[in-house]
């Protein structure tokens, strides 16, 4: 629709955010020593992006997140299809699921560090644990919402149980799964960063930021890292949204469900 003006307005808003930040810092509303203004932070960010050590940390964080998201999807989609379509399996497993889900993954960090050490495995395992739930639950609920007439149509054409699952249930659940993936990415990134923040031995953006914040010595680096993490999260979300529009335009505009 009016993509042009909306886009400009949004851009103005983003610039405004940075201006407010600049002003808050310059006027001493928040002590400048802590809240370095963007006129300092953004050049720092540019400088850091040319730094190999920094880039390596960023890549370590993003890669661990992506692996965790992929693992979450690989585990949670089949599990969700199974739990969503076989009621006794669901009843049997739900108690275990309801027991595990509320445990915040970050609470497992100290334990996981003791058990698995400070390598990337710890990050990936914990981020996968946190990322499973949105995809799992979205897949299950998507199956609950599955249109019985779609199933009957497929069955009337002689499509078997497995065929109904892969050719009807899976495609109609796909938009829900992708919504889940968006949440999963945010969750996984948060957990990966948390592990890095807590454990000084884990290379990554979180560890870099924590080190820079020690004694508030390099607050520009802290803020630059935080802004970059925001950019990564924003880009991932926007990318997945775009993917959703492209793949599942039928869902948005169909409007029947």
């Amino acid at each position, binding site marked *: 629709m009016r993509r042009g*003006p*909306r886009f400009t*307005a*949004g851009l103005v*808003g*983003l610039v*405004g*955010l940075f201006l407010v930040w600049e002003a808050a810092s310059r006027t001493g509303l928040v002590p400048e020593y*802590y809240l370095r203004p963007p006129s300092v932070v953004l050049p720092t960010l540019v400088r850091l992006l040319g730094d190999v050590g920094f880039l390596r940390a960023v890549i370590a964080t993003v890669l661990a997140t992506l692996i965790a998201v992929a693992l979450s999807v690989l585990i949670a989609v089949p599990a969700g299809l199974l739990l969503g379509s076989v009621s006794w399996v669901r*009843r*049997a497993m*739900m*108690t*275990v699921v*309801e*027991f595990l*889900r*509320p*445990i*915040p*993954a*970050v*609470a497992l*960090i*100290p*334990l996981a*560090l*003791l058990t698995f050490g400070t390598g990337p495995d710890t990050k990936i395992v914990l981020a996968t644990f946190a990322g499973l739930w*949105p995809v799992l639950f*979205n897949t299950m*609920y998507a199956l*609950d*919402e599955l249109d019985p007439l779609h199933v009957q149509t497929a069955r009337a054409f002689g499509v078997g149980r497995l065929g109904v699952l892969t050719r009807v249930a899976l495609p109609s659940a796909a938009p*829900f799964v992708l*919504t*889940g993936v*968006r*949440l999963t990415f*945010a969750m996984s990134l*948060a957990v990966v*960063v*948390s592990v890095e*923040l*807590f454990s000084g031995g884990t290379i990554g*953006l*979180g560890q870099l*930021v924590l080190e820079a*914040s020690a004694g*508030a010595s390099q*607050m520009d680096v*802290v*803020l630059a890292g*935080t802004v970059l*993490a*925001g*950019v*990564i*999260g*924003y880009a991932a*979300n926007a990318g997945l949204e775009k993917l959703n529009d492209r793949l599942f335009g039928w869902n948005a505009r169909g409007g029947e469900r």
Partner: protein
Amino acid sequence: MRLLKEAGQRWVVFAVAVLVWELLARAADDVFFPPPTTIAEAAGELWFSPLFGEHVVPGVGRMLAGFATAAVVGVALGVLLGRSATAMAYLSPAFTFIRSIPPPLLVPFFAATIGVTSMQLPTIAFGALWPVLLNTVDGARSVDATKVETARAFRLSRAQWLLGVVLPSALPKVFAGLRLSLSIALVLMVISELIGSLNGVGNQLVQAQRDYALPAMWAWIVLLGILGYLFNTLLLLAERRALAWQPGHSPEAKTLATGG
């Protein structure tokens, strides 16, 4: 009879899982994976000791206070902003950007600025604000045209309009946002206490890690799971009450479908 069978199905796998865990842990005799009975023993000691008052109460108190602040500010601001297409055209990307920052990464900044021992509550409030706010905006925006016209025809006052029409219409989305905010608040509570705090469950987890007190560590993890379950259930109950008027409302399906 069928109910009995279903209840059996519900608990049998869980019971078997715990039993297998117990047997495996006993057989492996691994310090990292104590059997459930040992964990339960540790939990019994820890949860009912003065530690509960010294750590669980203040930590959870900060979490609830931060969450409540975020909820009040988020809903109020969201209802107001959601009805202004112009305001949101300018603000939406900026808000989405702030929301996209992984919440735990706020901790170092807040810790440096406010101080390691007092940053928990503001961090939680700030981090938990964005999902409620953005979801409320979304909900407030989607008031249908008929309702808008009906309200005009009855010449509702602005307060009546916002509280009587916009807010109820936005409620399903508001609750979706609240649930996301709650989980962020819990995560922030734990991570902010892990990184530095005088007290709190996270503080105790670090303590247990330093002492290699694995049963204690497991006991605290289980407690966090129970607390998470409890708060989530309370929120769901509140939602069910608040949305009882909605035909065919199933909170789970809606939340997750909208995603936030």
